[in-house]
């Protein structure tokens, strides 16, 4: 049975140090939900509050309608997967997986069946009688996952489960995790600081910074319509430029460097006024213009990556920017060359001058008020 998790105005303090000032989030039943944010922003802290290993200094946490603030961690029926695997080194793979079932005092036959089933599912059945120290990191993490899932928990919690693996294994394991989660259909809270990993596995992501949630949404929403400057630069790569908005004859015009102007049709009604703005342009949202129109820039360097070519440029106004172009067959633009570039105005994001909010329409944020 899966549950929905509701966190309401949660507060976490270590002594006088408030790590999470006031955090609310609703996690839907059966979804793969990721907490994403830079190191030290409080992801682990929040996860451990849900698990019951951290005290809660304020607010409430519910599994469905049941308040669990004071419920013993052992009684929350959660499965947990840790960054360092936390496999019991003194038990074989089989005994590790069976540990939770034995703890529930199930009968021997059920234990054996369930253990076998999950070891098969995670492809670790051939190591069943090995001691964990003779397994690779990836295999150990599979054991940890099997051990967490075999007890049929209501919630699966994972804290940076892949960060101790090498890059290739990480990509492989995240597919495994996503598939398993999908098959089992269990509510999952996943913690990572790697935005690419978060995008790859999640149904929805909560972007955190300094103990506060910045935005909650699908990977696509976060990438295309970030709610603020932090989200736009933390998710994917982006270039931030200064700009000015002006309203002329019912049209909203964005003025950028070098007198380059472009019309915006998706600025929110209440924000249509003359003001300074920050503009977030992703590398693929620049277009190199051969007719001398747009922002003027000089090419500093280029990196050819097969499908795409990345150009690193400095604009005439001194802003460093990155551009991605589909690789052309003829040639790569040489260093030192002067170019002009325009932006794809329907794709770029325009933010208030302090970066605290996106002023375009279509910004979705599931963050509860």
């Amino acid at each position: 049975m899966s549950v929905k998790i509701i966190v309401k105005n949660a507060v976490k303090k270590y002594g006088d140090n408030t790590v999470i000032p006031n955090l609310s989030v609703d996690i839907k039943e059966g979804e793969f939900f990721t907490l994403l944010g830079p190191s030290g922003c409080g992801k682990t802290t929040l996860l451990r509050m849900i698990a019951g290993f951290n005290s809660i200094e304020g607010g409430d946490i519910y599994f469905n309608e049941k308040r669990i603030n004071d419920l013993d961690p052992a009684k929350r029926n959660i499965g947990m997967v840790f960054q360092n695997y936390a496999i019991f080194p003194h038990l074989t793979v089989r005994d590790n997986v069976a540990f939770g079932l034995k703890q529930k005092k199930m009968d021997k036959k059920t234990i054996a069946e369930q253990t076998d089933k999950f070891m098969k599912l995670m492809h670790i059945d051939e190591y069943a009688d090995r001691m964990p120290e003779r397994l690779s990191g990836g295999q150990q993490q599979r054991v940890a996952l099997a051990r967490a899932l075999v007890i049929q928990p209501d919630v699966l919690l994972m804290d940076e489960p892949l960060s101790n693996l090498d890059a290739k294994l990480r990509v492989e394991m995240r597919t495994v995790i996503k598939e398993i989660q999908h098959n089992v259909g269990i509510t999952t809270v996943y913690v990572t600081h790697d935005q690419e990993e978060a995008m790859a596995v999640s149904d929805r992501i909560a972007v955190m910074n300094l103990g506060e949630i910045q935005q909650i949404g699908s990977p696509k929403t976060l990438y295309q319509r970030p709610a603020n400057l932090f989200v736009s630069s933390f998710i994917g790569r982006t270039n931030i430029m200064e700009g000015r908005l002006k309203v002329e004859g019912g049209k909203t015009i964005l003025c950028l460097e070098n007198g380059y102007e472009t019309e915006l049709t998706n600025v929110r009604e209440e924000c249509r006024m003359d003001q300074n703005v920050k503009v977030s342009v992703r590398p693929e949202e620049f277009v190199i213009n051969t007719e001398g129109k747009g922002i003027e820039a000089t090419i500093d360097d280029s990196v050819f990556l097969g499908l795409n070519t990345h150009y690193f440029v400095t604009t005439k106004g001194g802003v460093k920017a990155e551009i991605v172009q589909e690789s052309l067959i003829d040639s790569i633009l040489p260093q030192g060359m002067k170019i002009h570039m325009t932006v794809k105005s329907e794709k770029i994001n325009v933010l208030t001058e302090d970066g605290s909010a996106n002023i375009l329409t279509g910004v979705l944020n599931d963050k509860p008020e």
Partner: protein
Amino acid sequence: MSPTKKRFDIWTVISLAILGLYGLFLLYPLFRLLLESIFKNGAFTLEYFTKFFSNPYYGTTLVHSFALSISATIFALIIGVPLAYFYNMYEIKGRALLQIIIVLCCMSAPFIGAYAWVQLRGNNGVITRLIESLIGHKPPSIYGFRGIVTVLSLQLFPLVHMLVSGALKNVDNSLLEASENMGVSGVKRFFKVVIPLCMPTILAAALLVFMRAFADYGTPLLIGQGYQTFPVIIYNEYFGETGTDHNFAAAVAVIAIVITAIIFLIQKWASNRFEFHMNALHPIEMKKATGLKNVLIQLYTWGVVLLAFMPQVYVMYCSFRATSGKIFVKGFAMTSYQKIARDVPLAVRNTFVIGIIALAMVVLLAVLIAYLVVRRRSKLNDTIDTASMIPYIIPGSVVGIALVIAFNRKPLVLTGTAFIMIVALCIRRIPYTIRSSVAILQQIPITVEEAAISLGCSKLEAFFKATLPMMANGVLSGAILSWVTIITELATGVILYNRNTITLTLSIYTMVSRGSDGPAAAYATILNVLTVISMLIFMKFSKNKDISF
């Protein structure tokens, strides 16, 4: 929206229980000891302290004790640190045997060394006569200050070796290679790199050696010949043949505690300046020294170790000598063993029963306390931590006397029982086991325990099913040393034992004090054999072959 309050759980109960035990068996006795020193027939008085400080005789014993302990500490370091260095850096022939001998050396009851040295180098000793016949006149006497320092240094350097070896195991080989790359090698490297890296441990070893030397009264008693030391007063005033004064003994004990506490604080201050942590990814690789260097290294390591071991070999040899009355005569016989045959079974049984129960209690309590200290930091547990470390700085005889004072009267009469001896052993040994358990626990990620809890374990189950098995190996290698210390403990035992609770070590002591050298030697031999057997059993079952302190 009420903030969750700190949960009251099973560990809180354990904390309170342990604190209760310390309150009853340590703090209360020390409190009684203090009362005893400042009350005379129910009235407050400082006369016992005045007596100590107004009579120059007592002051002199204090000066003597300091002179002895400082000298013995310095010599033990000078011998022990290079020994540890050679032992861990170079291939030594017969390592395993050397290891066992070293443990035997530092575990023999302190007075055995003194006793054997008297036999060997006394006025009429074997070696004294040998030297005399070689050089024509008597060599310098072993008695007095010089003798005590020699015996104590030889007795205590193996301890330094064991502690410093532990530190060297945490030195990463790359540090040594790096210093070599920078042109620091050989002797220079020893002083510039190795010593500073081991400094915290060397200071800890210095404290330990100092405390042992300071508390020892067997050696000065046997070999001092008028060179009176401080602990001897405590013992004489409490258990002497004539003119004992319990209140005065208590006062001297209190002074002893104050002094050792001051020493402890000085050491702590000194070692705080060297605080850092090491963890070797690549432990030091032992090298094979060549040529003259190799010869010298082998000679030094085996030389000093055998020198320290000689008294025990001599004692074992004596146990097989024929005796007539209390005197050894020519030839070999089993008479010494025959004489004690009737009493040995009881002593062996006591040694094992008391020892095993004490060891089990020591390990259990130390592991629990370590857990509380590492994983459950709180005021309550800090108090336990401090209380458990108090015995570290209190001489064994003082612990013994405090227990007698507290428990030889109603409501709780425990003197004369095996129970009180077990309590004393626990109090004495737990500080060491806690330190090593804490170190082990700090290496174990807390997530293992949380994994167990999330799989449905209660907190206590998680500890016993996940954390404890992971600690087992480390705790085991500490336990063997605890075991050896426990079965050879003398300081408290000599105060607390009686006919029914006598152990092997105490039997040796009573025989020596009666002048029955043969039976004493026989007991000592039996004890040594049992110690070696228990170490061999341990080495067979333990994964890592090292005995750690």
